[in-house]
């Protein structure tokens, strides 16, 4: 049941990306290109994707998170960290540069697996390598002693 639900949620998510135009890197780059505003070729569509996505999620989360527990799990698994740190900012900065270079972020890249041909597959392969590297580095960093001062 849980596996079927998550398949359907992934499907709805992917359909949303396609209908919104987010699955097309040309459209994403057309939005990110603020230099095109004076030229009259800027495509502001992605503001509407964000408005639709955050609007529905903001309202939906209000209703859902008022429940005692989710329908198919014991508890809500929400991120506990609340303060921004250098790791968050540096990761987001690297992600932003990569997003601006090709116009793909992780969801649209996966949606392009069957439709994007070799360019999409090459991007996906590199993205998965990048994810593995980040997880390994995170594990290695977490295993290191926090600070020399605490080592007595």
């Amino acid at each position: 049941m849980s596996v079927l639900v998550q398949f359907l949620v992934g499907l709805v998510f992917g359909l949303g990306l396609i209908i919104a135009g987010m699955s097309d890197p040309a459209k994403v780059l057309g939005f990110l290109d603020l230099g095109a505003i004076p030229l009259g070729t800027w495509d502001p569509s992605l503001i509407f994707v964000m408005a639709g996505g955050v609007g529905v999620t903001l309202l939906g989360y209000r209703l859902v998170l008022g429940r005692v527990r989710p329908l198919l799990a014991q508890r809500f698994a929400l991120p506990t960290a609340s303060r921004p740190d250098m790791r968050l900012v540096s990761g987001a900065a690297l992600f932003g540069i990569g997003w601006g270079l090709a116009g793909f972020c992780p969801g649209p890249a996966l949606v392009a697996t069957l439709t994007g041909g070799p360019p999409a597959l090459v991007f996906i392969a590199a993205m998965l390598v990048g994810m593995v590297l980040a997880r390994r580095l995170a594990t290695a960093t977490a295993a290191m002693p926090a600070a020399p001062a605490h080592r007595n």
Partner: protein
Amino acid sequence: MIVTLFTPVASLAGGALIGLAAVLLMLFEGRIAGISGIVSRLLPPEGDGQTPGRLAFVMGLIVAPLAYAAVSGLWPVPQVAATMPILIVAGLLVGFGSVWGNGCTSGHGICGLSRLSPRSAVAVATFMTMAIATVFVARHVL
């Protein structure tokens, strides 16, 4: 460079569907619909019993164009202008950066902002600024 048309209605509707998916995942599984988090926890699989669900979610994303084509009769082909070397560098940066920064456009952009998370607000401001700056340099400076 490819010029695309302004599609406010389709983009708002598609965005709402993305939001619906995020709300459904929270309602049924109690989880954030963050693509980079879901995918990276398969590399390698975390021993938390969630691997089949994560794989199913990713499969749903991958077959979405088939469902779209079945209903609309249109095959949604992404227009990729970047060269292979750029795609490799971009893929590495997107994969590494999204995991290192604990989220991408979905986890921080849709879910995090909807939870009014200060971390997500900072992450979104950072990656939007960097992406806009990157496109500006690539298209108007170089």
